[in-house]
């Protein structure tokens, strides 16, 4: 442990990057849930659920990096029978976003648990530094 730079400070950066990524994930999930019934966007199509893409530098301990937010283009839109709806087609079906609430809920639990895990890491690093400094006494 050098004086100018505590060893674990790198670990603080890593834990913070994890916290940032998970809180971004929570933002995206919130946005998906908020738009679960959004039948029209600027493109004329319903809202597509968004997903977070994260990356890292493989050979460095650089933490996680938020790479991109992408639309889920694979899962199909839901078709709901709502004849009076302004966006309904000839048969009275409205295309609804490909957001599935149970899935978003599960993702939310995962994201918030991961956030807590990163916070626990940060806390534990600080405790480790304290334990190390106890050796000086």
């Amino acid at each position: 442990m050098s004086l100018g730079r505590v060893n674990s400070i790198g670990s603080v950066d890593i834990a913070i990057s994890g916290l940032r990524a998970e809180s971004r994930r929570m933002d995206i999930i919130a946005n998906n849930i908020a738009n679960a019934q959004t039948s029209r966007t600027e493109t004329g199509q319903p809202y597509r659920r968004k997903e977070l893409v994260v990356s890292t530098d493989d050979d460095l301990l650089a933490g996680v990096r938020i790479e991109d937010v992408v639309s889920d283009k694979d899962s199909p839109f839901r078709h709901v029978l709502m004849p009076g709806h302004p966006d309904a087609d000839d048969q009275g079906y409205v295309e609804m976003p490909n957001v599935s609430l149970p899935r978003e809920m599960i993702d939310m639990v995962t994201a918030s648990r991961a956030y807590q895990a990163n916070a626990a890491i940060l806390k534990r690093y600080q405790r480790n530094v304290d334990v190390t400094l106890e050796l000086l006494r």
Partner: protein
Amino acid sequence: MAAINPISGGVGHVPRPTADLQKSGPGEGGNFSKTLMDVVNGVDDKQQASHTAMQDLLTGKTQDVLPVVMAVAKADMSFKLLIGVRNKVIEAYKQTMNMQV
């Protein structure tokens, strides 16, 4: 500062080239105080960064709380380290001064 120069060899965990260690004889010094000043400045920088981050958050300049957490954690840890080393140095100084000559 000149008074505690002779103990500079005793602080073994301060990273420093061996050549410099041999060069600085008793009374010559300047090396230990320079190392100490560098460290204090480093810790001070972190304290300033933590202060600025907190101020930015409180004045609404930034909404992100994570940089504040990071800056405060770093400042806290390096300050604790500085305090630990200072206590050790003071203790060594006291023991040296209490020595019967």
